[in-house]
């Protein structure tokens, strides 16, 4: 699955014809992420702010006795940061950071469902006219009359990790 994320965004969707995803809502937009990545969906937990950290992952939570970072895709996509609602959940996913599989919590406004997306319905993000950074989007999938955004999680996390370690790690990928 990380291979999918690592390909250039213009290539859009590669690999299997269908993929199982978890869809969720963030500031009114519909997102999807590979269901295989998802470890667990939990209620909001008390957060501990990490002073000095990148706002993308500005706090940590206790997830079953482990201390894991809590990331906010709204920061990556410059979305409006609203208050939490009764539907707010944390999706715990596994992602590779610096060669290590790491558990990370993702803030969501609402978790919808696990569903199957068709490759035929996907398209690469347009290179112009997008208000979001195209390298952070793996592809857009049309379903009924709405678009679901599949974020390029690995690229987003790499970027935010690299932001703090300017030189050495840029060449890693």
């Amino acid at each position: 699955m990380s291979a999918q994320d690592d390909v250039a965004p213009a290539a859009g969707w590669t690999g299997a014809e269908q993929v199982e995803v978890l869809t969720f809502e963030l500031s009114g937009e519909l997102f999807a992420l590979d269901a295989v990545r998802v470890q667990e969906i939990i209620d909001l937990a008390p957060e501990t702010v990490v002073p000095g950290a990148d706002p993308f992952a500005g706090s940590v939570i206790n997830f079953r006795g482990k201390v894991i970072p809590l990331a906010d895709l709204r920061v990556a996509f410059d979305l409006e940061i609203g208050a939490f609602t009764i539907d707010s959940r944390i999706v715990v996913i596994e992602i590779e950071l610096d060669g290590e599989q790491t558990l990370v919590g993702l803030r969501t406004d609402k978790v919808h469902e696990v569903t199957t997306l068709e490759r035929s319905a996907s398209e690469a993000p347009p290179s112009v006219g997008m208000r979001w950074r195209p390298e952070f989007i793996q592809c857009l999938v049309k379903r009924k009359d709405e678009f679901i955004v599949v974020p390029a999680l690995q690229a987003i996390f790499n970027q935010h990790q690299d932001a703090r370690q300017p030189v050495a790690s840029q060449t890693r990928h």
Partner: protein
Amino acid sequence: MSDDAIAVFQVEARENLELIEQGLLDLLDRPEDRDLVDAVFRGLHTLKGSGAMFGFDALAAFTHHCESAFERVRKDEVAATADLVSAVLAARDHMRRLMEDPSGDHAAAGDLLLADLERAVREAEAIAPTFAARPGMTTWRIRFDLPSNAFRNGVNPLALLAELRDLGEASVVADMSRVPPLNLIEPTDHYLAWDVLLTTDQGRAAIEDVFIFVMDDMTLEIEAVEDAACIEGGETEAAMVQPAAALADPMPNPATAPAVGDPVDVDVARPVRIAESVRVPADRLDELMDRVGELVIAQSRLGQIAHASADPLLRAVSEDIGRLSGELRDTMMVLRMVPVATLFGRFRRLIHDLARETGKAIELSTDGETTEIDKTVIERLADPLIHLIRNAADHGLEQPEDRVAAGKTETGSICLSAHQSGGEVVIVIRDDGRGIDRERVRAKAEAQGLIEPGAAISDHDLLQMIFHPGFSTAQAVTNLSGRGVGMDVVKRTIDSLRGSIDVASRPGEGSEVSLRIPLTLAIIDGLLVRVGQGRYVIPLSAVEECLELSLDEDRRSRGRSFISLRDRLVPFLRLRELFATGTPPELHQKVVVVSSGEERIGLVVDQIIGDHQTVIKSMSKLHASLSTFSGATILGDGGVALILDIANLVAMGQEQEAQMREAV
């Protein structure tokens, strides 16, 4: 052969190689010591036998040559010269390679080593006068008795008797007094003892050799019989092996116990001195440690609930569990502790090699080897210490003639010592060499732009320069060190262990590097404090004292950030500002004075909550670059508190102080 069996063989072979190495190094100091020669020979022999059994043919063949060479030492045909012992040491390293990587192509290297060994043996032959003439014929009375499980261990008494007969005229009488009635006989048990009268021109050693592989496990008496009737006393104790030792020997490992085979070739009677130890894979210990960590967290939750409740029964149970989990934690810690001797032992070989490479005479002394540290810490300490010892040998110690010219002994000394101090272990590497050349350090630091030319800098700070990346004062790059990659790597490793490093040096008298390492990386005692809304843990071992900072004092100190503590000015950091909490200061702020090495600073916090058993959880890579925190922990209420990295905060405070001074 199953992989498991091979893994067991490798573990044992590694230990055996370790023993061989230690024996050889001892032999350099005491070349006359027969026990050492025997121990090394036995080690080689076992390695050869078990290697062949487990299909490590190259290892067996190679070891066979070394064993043959060494046997000549054992038979007093050649002397154990330093050259010969060094050649065997080099061969030992090759054995290790053959054992770790049996499929690799090592033949060429092996031949070179063997040629080297042969040359060393020939030279030893030339120097060493052969051992004094053999004594004439002596009659010996030999009584031996094997343990009842001898057959199962693969010992063949007939082969032993045959070997005795080979030595000379022998008459053998079996002692059958212990043979039980037929219906009670266990066919695999051994019941006999023997009484042998042997007339031979060989000495006692030759007779002992017959039993060399079973000796630790049996009763053996050898007495010289001058006259048929007259038996010399007082000579027996050397050959006596206490029967108790035989009983204490545990079951041989099934993986190494052969079903059949030449009993003499298989050393089944490994003497095991610590009868009651269990080998446990380290990851199981880590797992147990995790569980204990979770228990400690659950216990502190229980404690909190009990504290809030009025139920005396609940409180009593909670107190009990608190005590138990504390004890469990301590026991767990002890399990993971290993004496630094295991670490120091490795450096004897290093010193030996360094002395040969540099042509310097070096003596290594160690102190405090029983000091214990967490196993994972020990492993990570090995490389930095190797760097430091290499540095001391290469840069610190002078050539023998320079030493004599400076009025010192020809032999340079490097001293390794360890002792515990509070929650830390202090390891000191001291040499009596020329000391660090300040002028050169300064010149280099100026050349690299680390300090302004001619800037005033304290001696301590100047010496700390050597830990900068790419900093090396050696003018020529030697084989040993001087590439300038050593010291900064050392510092980084020590930092990652949450330790600190300090260097002191007196010109002409030598240098001293001290490492302060926390005892463990898993659970620490911490002081829980509150800053704004956040809770943080300060490692208790770093805390010196806590003071109150009233609003008045706070206001007065604004702009200078010092408090005077018993006539000393201590800089302080307002964590509220550092962490940008955006909350107003509490009415009664507290200052926690912490120290790292010699330096101390105050940390201003809003509230001191209390002490807290802190299970250290590492931070993810997303937060790894934050130097303010060394980890996180989970509190009794399930929340997370960050652990302050004191060494970095102290450095930060000192820097701030320096800036303030400049500004004044």
